[in-house]
């Protein structure tokens, strides 16, 4: 939770800088703020995934984690490594490759940390009473996510090769194995919240993750259009990445359909909102807005502009941010024993953050499209074009304030009601503490 607040703070620093107010330049230059913003996102999402796995796996396997203490140590150290990394950024200590900015020694710590995490999960699963599809898909996603971190650690002298393998990490994470994790968590939530038969949900889970890999693996090609790579990627990347929205469409239809079909009316309405929300917004942000600039003819102009920021914000929020909020909303009442299902402020949190993020996306879209036109079509100098689109960053800041208000309400409730309520607590729930962030 602390991490997401920090992430948003740095987002504001950047937005103001784009608006022409860079008073903090001497202490927090843009590149430090940018790296902090992105890396915090990754760390808090990973913490969220790990926390979710620590909750879901024991429940699916019907066995407690092999070592709860080790799990705590692992989560806390991950957060510490994350914080050390961002402090390092401010002293110009990095590896400096987009999204993989953290310095090499810290990379090794992350590897050790993630191996610990996987060890705990796999051992629990292995010793568990049953191995369900949901648990397997989730675990598979986590294992591959760890494996794919490794190509990002190879050093290349050639910038194009460097970029080529960087996308193995970044693309195959976000548009591949993370979707497996997302599918697993979503399936778990839907099984719990709608009461639809597990067999039916898990069948569709296979279909959806099947579609993900079908389109997503070769869809990596959409990063290989213009970076010194052969031309066949234009065709392959174009075709397969145009199919990527199918997986997200599948997820959205799946969630809505199961919700309609489910006979059970689960009392936790907030968790249900976040669950349906994540499926739908992921389709809009990751699926449709991705499709908007994935074709090579379009991407020739939009590549490396604010159009990418538009897609990135709604996609990450919809697919992964909201997913983590969904699992938090689902597990909180169970872990604390408080039956706060329809707290009005949490409903505001949902809508404010959603509307705020949609507004931000629109502001980025307007800025991005104008930038593409002025800079790439008319051929204006970069800074001349930037001056023209400055106003959109004011709108961005306003919408971001709305978003932030929503998040702050959520965090406030999280802290206020996050402590276990001793009387209502059931003993076996006690240690399934999902700590979403530091």
């Amino acid at each position, binding site marked *: 939770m602390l991490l997401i607040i920090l992430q948003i703070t740095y987002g504001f620093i950047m937005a103001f800088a784009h608006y022409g107010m860079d008073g903090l330049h001497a202490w927090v230059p843009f590149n430090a703020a940018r790296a902090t913003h992105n890396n915090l996102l990754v760390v808090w999402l990973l913490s969220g995934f790990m926390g979710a796995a620590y909750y879901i796996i024991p429940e699916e396997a019907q066995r407690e984690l092999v070592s709860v203490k080790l799990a705590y140590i692992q989560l806390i150290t991950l957060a510490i490594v994350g914080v050390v990394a961002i402090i390092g950024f401010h002293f110009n200590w*990095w590896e400096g490759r987009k999204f993989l900015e953290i310095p090499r020694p810290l990379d090794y710590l992350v590897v050790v940390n993630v191996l610990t995490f996987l060890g705990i999960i796999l051992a629990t699963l292995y010793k568990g009473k049953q191995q369900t599809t949901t648990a397997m898909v989730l675990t598979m996603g986590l294992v591959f996510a760890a494996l794919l971190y490794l190509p990002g650690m190879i050093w290349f002298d050639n910038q194009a090769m460097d970029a*080529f393998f960087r996308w193995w990490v970044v693309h195959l994470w976000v548009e591949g194995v993370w979707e497996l994790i997302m599918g697993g968590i979503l399936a778990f939530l839907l099984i719990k919240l709608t009461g639809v038969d597990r067999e039916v949900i898990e069948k569709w889970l296979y279909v959806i993750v099947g579609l993900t890999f079908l389109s997503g693996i070769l869809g990596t090609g959409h990063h290989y259009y213009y970076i010194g790579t052969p031309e066949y990627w234009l065709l392959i990347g174009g075709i397969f990445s145009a199919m990527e929205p199918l997986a997200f469409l599948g997820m959205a239809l799946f969630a809505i359909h199961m919700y309609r079909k489910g006979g059970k009316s689960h009392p936790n309405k907030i968790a249900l909102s976040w669950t349906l929300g994540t499926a739908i917004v992921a389709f809009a942000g990751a699926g449709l807005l991705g499709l908007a600039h994935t074709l090579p003819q379009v991407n020739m102009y939009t590549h490396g502009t604010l159009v990418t920021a538009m897609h990135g914000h709604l996609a990450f929020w919809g697919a992964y941010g909201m997913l983590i909020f969904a699992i938090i909303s689902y597990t909180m009442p169970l872990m604390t024993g408080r039956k706060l299902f329809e707290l009005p402020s949490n409903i505001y949190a949902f809508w404010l953050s959603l509307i705020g993020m949609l507004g931000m996306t629109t502001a980025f879209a307007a800025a991005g499209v104008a930038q593409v036109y002025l800079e790439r079509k008319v051929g204006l100098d970069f800074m001349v074009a930037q001056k023209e689109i400055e106003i959109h960053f004011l709108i961005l800041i306003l919408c971001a304030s709305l978003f932030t208000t929503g998040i702050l309400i959520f965090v406030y409730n999280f802290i206020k009601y996050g402590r276990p309520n001793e009387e209502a607590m059931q003993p076996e729930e006690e240690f399934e503490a999902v700590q979403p962030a530091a």
Partner: protein
Amino acid sequence: MLSKKQAKVFFLGGTLLFSLIFLGLSYESITASIPKKTNADQISDAVIRGKHIWDSNNCMGCHTLLGEGAYYAPELTKVYERKGETYIKTVLMSEKPWAPRGRQMVAYGLSEEDANDVVEFFKWVNEMDLNGFPPKPSEALQP
């Protein structure tokens, strides 16, 4: 209607098939096409040192190169052609934040040697075959 088992086969089979295609194409790219399109034989020690400086200062935190990076500062793929060696070196060696039209860059104050290495790096990047990127502005819209 599809059974759960068929769905599983679809998932595992599809994943395996497309992973293999992906690995095959990647192999071709990294062994043959990329070295050719990027003139890998022209990567000198200076270019490598330049790339190191580029990475270790996280230049991609503001700029884009090959269209990749952040969107706060200009795209630098063709900077060598656009601005020339002297301009680039002046910016890199400046002790004060370089701020054309108000937006500030970190003052790196590089040594002349380091600045030369970065210029060599940009010179090499400038020559890559990028399938037509960055696009040329439309003639009809020129003022």
